[in-house]
């Protein structure tokens, strides 16, 4: 038995006492700007953690660089604030070496989709069982206000004084295109929904990708207010739920219907259409997931928020463990003496 297994033998696999959100707060002062959306994300994650029945010592939060990447310092779990963009790769190594741990990644639109885009897509593709919280604020906060890969075309920032000419990424489409097995979107200013999505991601086995609309009140204030504020939210967001028709609007009076492959808004109040005519969300439907994700870019359509896609498929580290076990089963546990003396050898006396 190796040293890690020996250590784990004596470590409880479930919390010894009932934990609360407070137990997940570290002793470090939280240093985001007052009013930043990150506070809410931290609070909701801390609130959900005790429900998971996993002790703090079995959790690790890994991050890269950026405002969002300060996240691990504030969680009283194991944490690693690594280098720009590399959190998914570091988390991958940790999870492969230690499948017993629950591994979270905190990243942002710059960290995860620009400098670290390669690692993010390959983590999704491999289906490593890590939970990725991508804080999307459509701006570079820590470097003080340059446009990011999710900033809208034409965006005026410090580095684009006459407007950005970069076409933005849609994070959901990136994750889906990278074969993520769990893809969701949620909002910093909707604590309940945020908690629900975090809960679902925690329960999912495989890479869980969460795009969280996060307000950077210093450099990009109100970027998502259309979708997060009371006045406009209901008309502009459709909360998707598995098995339910896609209804939205102030009086729940609108729905999304598929005309061919094109989602279209229809009225439910003029007697022409009823709930039966609408798209019924199916988290396991690959085609639908792309259509929903694409809705974010089409004018006149509400933004889909919720779990867009969730399917089970083989998990990288579980498959690797299986290969190791089968190799041990076939060849027996490796013996150094035997390895050194294997194959063609000769003796000189």
């Amino acid at each position, binding site marked *: 038995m190796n*040293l890690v297994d020996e250590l*784990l033998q004596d470590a409880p696999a479930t919390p010894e006492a009932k934990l609360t959100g407070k137990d997940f707060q570290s002793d470090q002062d939280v240093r985001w700007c007052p009013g930043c959306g990150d506070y809410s994300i931290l609070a909701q994650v801390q609130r959900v953690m005790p429900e998971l029945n996993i002790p703090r010592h079995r959790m690790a939060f890994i991050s890269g660089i950026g405002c969002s990447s300060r996240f691990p310092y504030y*969680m009283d779990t194991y944490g690693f*604030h690594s280098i720009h963009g590399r959190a998914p*790769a570091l988390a991958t*190594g940790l999870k492969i*070496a230690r499948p017993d741990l629950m591994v979270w990644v905190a990243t942002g639109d710059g960290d995860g989709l620009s400098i670290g885009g390669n690692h993010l897509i390959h983590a999704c593709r491999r289906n490593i069982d890590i939970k990725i919280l991508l804080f999307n604020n459509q701006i570079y906060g820590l470097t003080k206000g340059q446009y990011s890969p999710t900033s809208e075309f034409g965006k005026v920032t410090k580095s684009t004084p006459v407007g950005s000419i970069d076409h933005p990424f849609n994070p959901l489409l990136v994750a889906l295109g990278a074969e993520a097995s769990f893809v969701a979107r949620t909002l910093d200013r909707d604590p309940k929904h945020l908690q629900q999505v975090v809960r679902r991601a925690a329960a999912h086995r495989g890479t869980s990708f969460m795009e969280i609309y996060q307000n950077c009140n210093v450099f990009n204030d109100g970027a998502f207010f259309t979708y997060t504020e009371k006045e406009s939210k209901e008309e502009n967001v459709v909360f998707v739920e598995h098995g339910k028709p896609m209804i939205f609007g102030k009086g729940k009076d609108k729905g999304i219907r598929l005309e061919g492959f094109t989602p279209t808004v229809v009225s439910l109040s003029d007697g022409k259409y009823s709930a039966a005519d609408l798209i019924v969300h199916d988290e396991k439907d690959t085609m639908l997931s792309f259509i929903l994700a694409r809705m974010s870019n089409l004018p006149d359509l509400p933004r889909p928020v919720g779990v867009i896609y969730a399917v089970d498929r083989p998990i990288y580290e579980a498959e690797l463990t299986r290969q190791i076990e089968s190799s041990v089963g076939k060849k027996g546990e490796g013996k*150094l003496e035997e390895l050194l003396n294997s194959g063609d050898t000769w003796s000189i006396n």
Partner: protein
Amino acid sequence: MSKTLKTLEDVTIRFAGDSGDGMQLTGTQFTNTTALFGNDLSTLPDYPAEIRAPAGTLFGVSGFQIHFGSSEINTPGDACDVLVAMNPAALKVNLGGLRDGGIIIANSDGFTEKNLKLAGYEKNPLEDDSLQKYQVHAVAITTLTQNALQDLGLSNKLIDRSKNFFALGIMYWMFTRPIDLTVKWIGQKFGKTPEIAEANTRVLKAGYAFGETTEIFVSRFEVQPAELVSGKYRSITGNEAAAWGMIAASVKSRLSLFLGSYPITPASDILHELSKHKNFGVRTFQAEDEIAGITSAIGASYGGALALTTTSGPGMALKSEAMGLAVMTELPLVIIDVQRGGPSTGLPTKTEQADLLQAVSGRNSEAPIPVIAASTPADCFQTAFEASRIALKYMTPVIMLTDGYLANGSEPWLIPDASSLPDISPTFRTDPEGFHPYNRDDKTLARPWAIPGTPGLEHRIGGLEKQHISGNVSYDPANHEFMVRTRQAKIDGIAADLPPAEVEGDPKGELLVVGWGGTYGAIRVAVARRREAGKSVSHLHLKYLNPFQENLGEILYSFKQVLVPELNLGQLSRLLRAKYLIPALSLNKIQGLPFHADEIEKKIDELLP
């Protein structure tokens, strides 16, 4: 016709042909048979970067050189005694390396008009007198191969692929080697395609029989087994030895081995080898890029694995930021850099030693990392083990340098006794009482290794500067200087834990030749020969390049002159000059090829007329 049998002390043979001619395979088979026969040997595979370079071209020539003998062999040989050339290009490229009077065995069927033209020959050199100073044997290898396989009904393409076994058969005959090992190997390798196994075996035997019966060869040679230290041997390449050294370190540290790596020539064979040994619990991860290779390894190390990443020069450059992270977070990690010709993509399949300064200081800011180098293919085993020992004991990344020549070259290896390897198991911190992530061990200055999964030790680390002891983020100026100095002191302190450097030859005198890495064999031979010629010259070969061993200064000051042969523009010499303030002289070769012993001898003679 009776043939004479001559006994030789050592022989150098070079097999050369198109990159699709199977020369590497032929050379490897000859090597394995020769090793099993009991000769000491050293090999030099030399192949183009293109997988299947256009047939017949000069740049598509693939070569494999083996030097074997009945006494100690340290290098793949300076000049060849025998050149097997499958086509005109192979002859042209390698003729300069053949000694006067050497033997050429040429496949005359390969000397077609087209191939002659591709190689730039106006006339067929086998038919004019341009090769007069050599013993030329033109053999119609392709035709003879076809004849041997006539009744098998194989396609011409398949038949053509067997012809290297004919050449191998001739060489087995010429150097009185048994063919059974290769026959057995063919059976295993081509077990699924019995007709190809049959064809290759037949052609091998036909080549052997041809040597026996033809009138063109009048003599054959024998090279008696070498008097090596008694014990059990195997043949091993540097990449295999490095992989096995890491497995040994995993066993002896009681940690599972994790490799994060991106395929790169000439390091990929370490990834290939380790991925075969899953029953040792080895977890290999082929990452999406070089950066993910090292960062995944850092993640695994954080989780308590013996972590390894492998690469070559361009990959080292990409990994440098993450190396800094490993320095800052003080996590154990082994980084193997199999050096190749550079800069940039450079010469992917050729050897060089030009990453030394990159290894020692190629990172932003003050980021000290121990650097050690292997000196022979088999030495990669011990060096990988030592790199792991230092990494685990001092909680630090360690860079191990090998090179293309060591990685692909092979030599007989006296198999070590597994039980004689020391225990290098670390102690994980488990006690929460008084735990601080950067509270160091008084002696080693290593911080505690507290892995996720340990109750009560939850803590955060990262790339931002750390407060001494608590490990919290700190921007305090005095603390930063203290931490920079402490990280340096920790690495410098490793010197006290190293065996003293040992001089081969007199401990003082006129000239000390200082080398490191894969130049070991060539320097050893050159110095030994000049000593026999009465010169006051000694050899010091450094394994530890950062920090240097404590007695190094004393040794350097005991010689009037210091010469540093390197396959670069003078990198170790620069480090020695800077640290010891001595006028170290450089001998440089930057051709993608190892030193020949006589090149070093010449320089020694120049300095000691």
